């Protein structure tokens, strides 16, 4: 469902741009609003959420799908944790549909999906692991590859048909579209601004996104 937000960037406590193909990690406190803004359109933003106070509790794609009996995320969708707790709710969405089946690209899965010689290409899992190794807010959480689980792909369109077909379709996002969540617990947010060049998830042209947080 398409819904807009009244929040204005001048009042944001965090307002940063994540360049194309780079990771980002930050804390969003309980009650804060977090906006991801697709600056140039059709940019998949691979995102994982962790309970910042106990990162063993983390976003669970299967719980989120199962508990709402729905594959897609939009306004009103609750993002559930591995403990069955609401982590966040989508409170605004000008795109209309976000994916949580497609996962994140990795050097190894790229060899399967495209060609064996695609292994050196930059990938979301490399971004996740780089962020976990270097972000100040991740240092005390002691997270590793083991903590990288099935993620959300904001602005990505992965339609499933009633006979079980699945495809990576052209994006339905556009420049300036955004999604907002309200945190229901203190969240550590781990993002890879997807560098994939082999399929239409980024319209074959990865671009920057803007990340904002309001109290």
């Amino acid at each position, binding site marked *: 469902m398409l819904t807009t937000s009244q929040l204005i960037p001048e009042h944001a406590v965090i307002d940063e741009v994540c360049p194309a193909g780079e990771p980002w990690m930050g804390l969003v406190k309980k009650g804060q609003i977090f906006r991801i803004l697709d600056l140039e359109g059709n940019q998949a933003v691979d995102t994982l959420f962790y309970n910042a106070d106990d990162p063993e509790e983390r976003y669970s794609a299967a719980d989120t799908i199962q508990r709402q*009996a729905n594959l897609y995320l939009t306004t009103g969708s609750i993002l559930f944790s591995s403990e069955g707790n609401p982590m966040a709710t989508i409170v605004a969405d000008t795109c209309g549909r976000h994916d949580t*089946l497609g996962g994140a690209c990795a050097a*190894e899965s790229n060899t399967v999906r495209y060609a064996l010689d695609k292994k050196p290409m930059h990938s979301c899992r490399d971004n996740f692991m780089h962020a976990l190794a270097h972000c100040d807010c991740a240092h005390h959480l002691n997270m590793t590859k083991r903590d990288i689980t099935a993620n959300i792909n904001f602005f990505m369109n992965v339609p499933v048909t009633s006979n079980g077909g699945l495809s990576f379709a052209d994006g339905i996002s556009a420049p300036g579209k955004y999604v907002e969540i309200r945190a229901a617990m203190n969240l550590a947010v781990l993002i890879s601004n997807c560098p994939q060049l082999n399929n239409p998830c980024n319209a074959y042209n990865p671009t920057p996104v803007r990340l904002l947080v309001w109290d």
Partner: protein
Amino acid sequence: MQDILWEEVIPGGHHWSGILRRGNTLTLTDLEGDANASALFYNKDEKLERYNMPDTLKAQHTAFLTTGNVCYSDMGRIFCSITADTVGWHDTICGVSDAALIEKKYGKANFQSHRNQMYRNGKDGLLIELGKWGLGKRDLVPTVNFFSKVVANDDGVLTYQPGNSQQGDTVDLRFEMDTLVVLSTSPHPLDPKKQYQPATIKLTASRTGDVGTVDVCRNHCPQNQRGFINTDRYYAS
């Protein structure tokens, strides 16, 4: 299936784990109908490598699993191939039940009142088995739910399909890696049945034998051909 290595029956609601080696096949048999067997796979020698639902679905452009499909690890390799399947659709999207869901749907039945007929849930069953191998909550990822079918409409609304698996239905998993298999036969989380009556399944392990050059899984799609190359390279000696 002449060369059977072992057989084991898993009552409905229970949990199981064990090692299946490259070159062996595990047959799951639904002994009662409408079974659910939630499964996870880990590399026996490096348990950080585990079943990856998104990689499995997107490599094969499918939202469910059946003959010809393979189960991918997060490292671009293949744990096991579905070489035969009388069911036709196995869910890998919906995850497992937890204690709160089971109590909400079926009421409470603990060991003190029900002994081994107590109501077990999928998440705790998998965690118990994972714990036996030094694994835990950080290793619990989306499962394959063998025998269960859930379909999506155009809006993504999911509906469980009763009767997907009949008594005697089987699915064969040919293992391509030395794999830790973790299972729960607790009810599928979207199964609308009002009674807690999860079906019993049978596990039959056998030697795979000659695969031959025309393989329904390897040649299912170019992606699987590359997945087999990655897997063969891992075991090259």
